[in-house]
């Protein structure tokens, strides 16, 4: 047992600690830029049809949207999405999602704790981001099953696709055999009705690894996901939506033979070029390969180019992203040397056949998020958040 005087001393010390926390955050926060206090370095971005850059910024109790007309040099006033306080929950592997339709409607989806343990909330703006709808639940099992790892796509017909990892089929919850759960989605062209019919895509999905989703040139979603195959192997599969709206069976695409019952928190990346070549980047610690890799497939994962190892393997290269624009392909990933995190990029101008040397473009010794590559249709940009500087947005 602690003696009372010791307790008092402890209370005093904790009081000081709290005071110092408030003090330093008050000093550090730039009131004009909520990205400086982004929760766990997770700022998400999306270009609108007019070239305006939109940001979604989660903080402890609220999410904000702001925008830039000069590719991230300056931003307008942030707009708060949730009028009620919510305990927002994001981490680099599970950032919130923002996407803007061809008609200019802005959609956001974010993970928060409210009443139920853990689920996600959807909101949108039809007035160019001046006001946002009251956040609503998408999951029809929100009171009992986790809904996280949010992804969102909007097609040219204003159909909004939301995707997430869902624990509803995991009857034994914390006792699941291998940390696997299901991938669900909902699609609607009328968000005002708040009707998001929840539909199953696949079971056997690694719960803690982000899923990568993009459109095929035909405008249908294509998914790259880390599976937990029945023998416990955590390699990747491609899942595609056919023209009649059905989902293909998962097509195993990577063959690294990583058999493990663990939480890697290290999901893949996917981009598809206009000639339907899917460019993939992923992490594995399999029997055959260890580290991060790039490869491409022209037949939706049935055959794969020889995987190319990325980065300085002595510096924990990880969390790769990939983007294709015309015949350009850019890769970005993080490396850590013991003190600082580097963002490293590599580029191809011939659809992933030959590659430039690695190039370090950003650096931080503070806590940071994962790199994200985005395009406005003409140029490629890198979005990255670190706690010291805030949000970085630079042209590649």
């Amino acid at each position, binding site marked *: *047992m602690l003696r009372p005087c010791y307790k008092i001393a402890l209370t005093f010390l904790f009081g000081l*600690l709290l005071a110092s926390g408030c003090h330093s955050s008050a000093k550090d926060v730039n009131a004009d830029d909520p990205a400086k206090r982004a929760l766990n370095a997770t700022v998400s971005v999306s270009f609108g049809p007019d070239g305006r850059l939109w940001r979604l910024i989660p903080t402890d109790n609220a999410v904000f949207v702001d925008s830039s007309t000069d590719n991230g040099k300056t931003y307008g006033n942030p707009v708060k999405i949730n009028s009620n306080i919510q305990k927002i929950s994001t981490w680099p592997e599970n950032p919130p999602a923002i996407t803007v339709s061809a008609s200019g409607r802005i959609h956001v989806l974010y993970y928060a704790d409210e009443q139920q343990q853990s689920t996600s909330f959807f909101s949108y703006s039809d007035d160019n981001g001046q006001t946002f709808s009251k956040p609503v639940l998408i999951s029809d099992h929100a009171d009992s099953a986790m809904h996280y790892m949010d992804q969102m796509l909007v097609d040219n017909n204003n159909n909004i696709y939301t995707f997430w990892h869902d624990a509803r089929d995991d009857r034994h919850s914390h006792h*699941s055999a291998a940390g696997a759960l299901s991938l669900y989605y909902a699609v609607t062209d009328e968000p005002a009705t708040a009707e998001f019919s929840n539909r199953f895509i696949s079971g056997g999905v690694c719960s803690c690894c982000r899923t990568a989703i993009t459109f095929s040139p035909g405008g249908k979603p294509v998914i790259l996901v880390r599976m937990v195959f029945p023998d416990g192997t955590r390699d990747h599969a491609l899942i595609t939506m056919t023209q009649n709206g059905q989902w293909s069976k998962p097509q195993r695409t990577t063959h690294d033979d990583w058999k493990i019952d663990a*939480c890697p928190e290290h999901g893949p990346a996917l981009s598809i070029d206009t000639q339907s070549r899917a460019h993939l980047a992923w992490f594995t610690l399999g029997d055959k390969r260890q580290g991060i890799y790039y490869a491409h497939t022209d037949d939706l994962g049935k055959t794969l180019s020889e995987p190319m190892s990325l980065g300085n393997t002595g510096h924990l290269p990880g969390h790769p992203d990939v983007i294709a624009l015309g015949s350009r392909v850019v890769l970005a990933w993080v490396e850590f040397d013991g003190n600082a995190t580097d963002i490293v990029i590599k580029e191809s101008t011939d659809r992933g056949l030959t590659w430039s040397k690695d190039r370090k473009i950003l650096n931080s010794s503070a806590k940071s998020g994962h790199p994200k590559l985005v395009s406005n249709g003409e140029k490629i940009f890198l979005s990255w958040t670190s706690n010291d500087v805030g949000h970085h947005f630079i042209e590649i």
Partner: protein
Amino acid sequence: MFLKKLFPSLPLILAIAFTSSARAEQPQLQPFAPGSYQQILANNADHPFMLVIWSITCSSCLKDMELLSSLHKENPDLKMIMLAADTVDDTDQIQQILGKNQLTGIDNWVFADENAQKLRFEIDPKWYGELPRTYFFDASHQRTGISGVMSRADYETMFAKILK
């Protein structure tokens, strides 16, 4: 910032405070900061031990707790140290899980640095952060690191190796 000026040795004071309070009935978590890994090695010089790194958000880790609990009871001579790769803010949840699995009587730590990557690198520059991650140290502190859930037989093989 004024705090550091007033109490340059605050981390030390806190470490002592946390260590002392570990004797209280409520399981206490020691803050794992830069230098803590070396401190653990020093505290256990010439003794074999097992370091289990886990997280409240790692489903594989939570599944493993029951087995860890019974292994701890069956092997009182083997020191078991647990380190939650979460944050000090998660203390309540960490303690709840440890309490439920009767793992409160051992050394328990929690990540306590803003940049968790630095802490992971200090433990093992080749570890990507996948969980659970378990290290088995023999008396001379030669270690084996294993990622993922292990079977009872796996543990017993490793115990035999480090205790011989």
